[in-house]
């Protein structure tokens, strides 16, 4: 065993002006050997919903040196069905075990009973959906005993039904539940191209005072029948368009913990560390401006 008896530090908040990365097992040793490169790490909650073994041992080691964010990808806050109580209990167990500074989930649904689709699927912005998502956020915050952050989605189409815009929906959700916003700047750029809207206008319509964390990532560009689509694959470096919009967001939010998400085409650690350094410079500039 790897000395798992020592509990993680209880009080290790993520500093506002700091950059983190998504933790990948391939990078654990490099991260531990290069602790100055990033200030914190984020993990997907679902990857730790089992009892023991090397993945837990790695996170226990990392957690001793780094503040943590736990990011859920399967709770299905936007599901029409009741939240899966067993899954929520497992999320609470991960949170108890690792005492993260931040906990977040998505404005999305992920499947129906017995059929998890492993995608963050869009919710139509109706009053019915708002009541439901708000109830699910309340239930989650009660189960965890703390507020969560909810991430704005990447979108590939607009529903023809709905009572409000996405930004109105997110604003109402934060007001009704007291949850914060996980501002995913990449998702805004992806959705803005796919749904043809102005990303800056969208950004400014969000409840930016509630932003508790920012996500940056790369995305793919595809062309289908002459229509350009952006695919949120976290498979490349953060794009210039995303960094530009990020700078603009910081001007409103002030410095916020910022995560670089990289889930495929994983580069060697030094490449990711260099990207973190570049984002840290943008954050420092924002801090100077305050």
């Amino acid at each position, binding site marked *: *065993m*790897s000395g*798992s008896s020592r509990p993680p530090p209880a009080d290790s908040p993520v500093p506002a002006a700091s950059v983190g990365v998504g933790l990948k097992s391939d990078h654990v040793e490099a991260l531990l050997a290069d602790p100055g490169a990033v200030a914190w790490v984020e993990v997907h909650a*679902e*990857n730790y*919903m*089992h*009892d*023991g*073994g*090397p*993945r*837990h*041992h790695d996170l226990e080691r990392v957690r001793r040196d780094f503040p943590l964010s736990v990011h859920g*990808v*399967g*709770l*299905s806050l936007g*599901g*029409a*069905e009741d939240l*899966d109580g067993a*899954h929520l209990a*497992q999320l609470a167990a991960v949170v108890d075990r690792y005492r993260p500074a931040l906990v977040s989930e998505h404005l999305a*649904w*992920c*499947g*129906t009973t*017995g*059929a*998890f*689709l*492993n*995608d963050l*699927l869009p*919710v*139509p912005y*109706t009053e*019915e*959906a708002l009541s*439901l998502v708000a109830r699910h956020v309340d239930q989650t915050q009660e189960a965890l005993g703390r507020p969560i952050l909810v991430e704005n989605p990447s979108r*590939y*189409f*607009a*529903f*023809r*039904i709905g009572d409000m815009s996405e930004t109105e929906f997110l604003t109402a959700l934060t007001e009704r539940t007291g949850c914060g916003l996980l501002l995913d700047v990449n998702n805004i750029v992806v959705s803005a191209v796919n*749904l*043809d809207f102005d990303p800056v206008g969208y950004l400014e319509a969000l409840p930016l005072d509630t932003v508790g964390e920012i996500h940056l990532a790369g995305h793919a560009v595809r062309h*289908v*029948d*002459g*229509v350009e*689509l952006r*695919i949120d694959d976290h498979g490349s470096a953060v794009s210039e368009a995303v960094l530009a919009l990020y700078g603009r967001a910081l001007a409103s939010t002030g410095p916020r913990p910022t995560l670089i998400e990289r889930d495929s085409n994983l580069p060697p650690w030094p490449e990711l560390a260099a990207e973190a350094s570049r984002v840290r410079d943008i954050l420092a500039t924002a801090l100077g401006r305050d």
Partner: protein
Amino acid sequence: MATLAEVQRAFGGAVLGDDDPTLAALIDGAGLTPEQRLGIHRNNALITLTEALGANFPVVKALVGDAFFTQTARAFIRRSPPASPVLSRHGEGFADFLATFEPAASLPYLPDVARLEWARLGALQAADARPAPRETLAGVPPHLLPMARCAVHPSFRFVVSDWPVDRVWAMHQPDWPDGKTVSLDEGGVTILLCRPDDRVLMARADRGTLSLLLALDMGQTLETAAQAAARAHPDFDLTAALTCVLSLGLLTEIAIPRTASDDAPVTPISRPETSA
């Protein structure tokens, strides 16, 4: 207006393969067809679920090749989508599916390779526990040994196969010598698995040893468990069985009654906190 539940039911069906005209009517194609836009989600779901299944069954994937695996995985996922977002448990039932999947019928050992990979995954993620040291049993007074009760490691898994699937698995590991082959005529195996620390160990054993472990895991005394193993497998050798079991780290605690006549309470003589 469609309710959220109606939209999601149709959407879920569309992602898994059935186009739904009522759903298409709710989607703004904006220069594309609604189906093309839905297709992005369908691709994302099927591609990532297929990748996750491949990550859980890398040797099955290597044995059949990427193209065949993708086809097989999609058929499986459409029939049995994962019940939970915990993708390390994605693939429960995959071995049974392979056994009935006609296009894979020419590889009769494939389902058992899948069973072995599933057992390894389960062992890898089971609760941690410190194994009892190998010399533990030597310290038990011989007249008390029959009364011993042994806790089996939480990562204990086993696979029984008519094929040498442990060697088929080993063939696809990086340390397998170039050019060395495995003959399917080598015959069947009983494989015990355990993860005493970070690595999953596997070893071949006889069926008697497996019977012993299963009986111990049910809480039977060593004597009762050994008798059951010997009844079912006349060649059962308790000493050899215990050596095998202890070398894999499969026992975590060995408890004996204070006296032979006093079955309870039991005194643990080895447990995780006190073992070296």
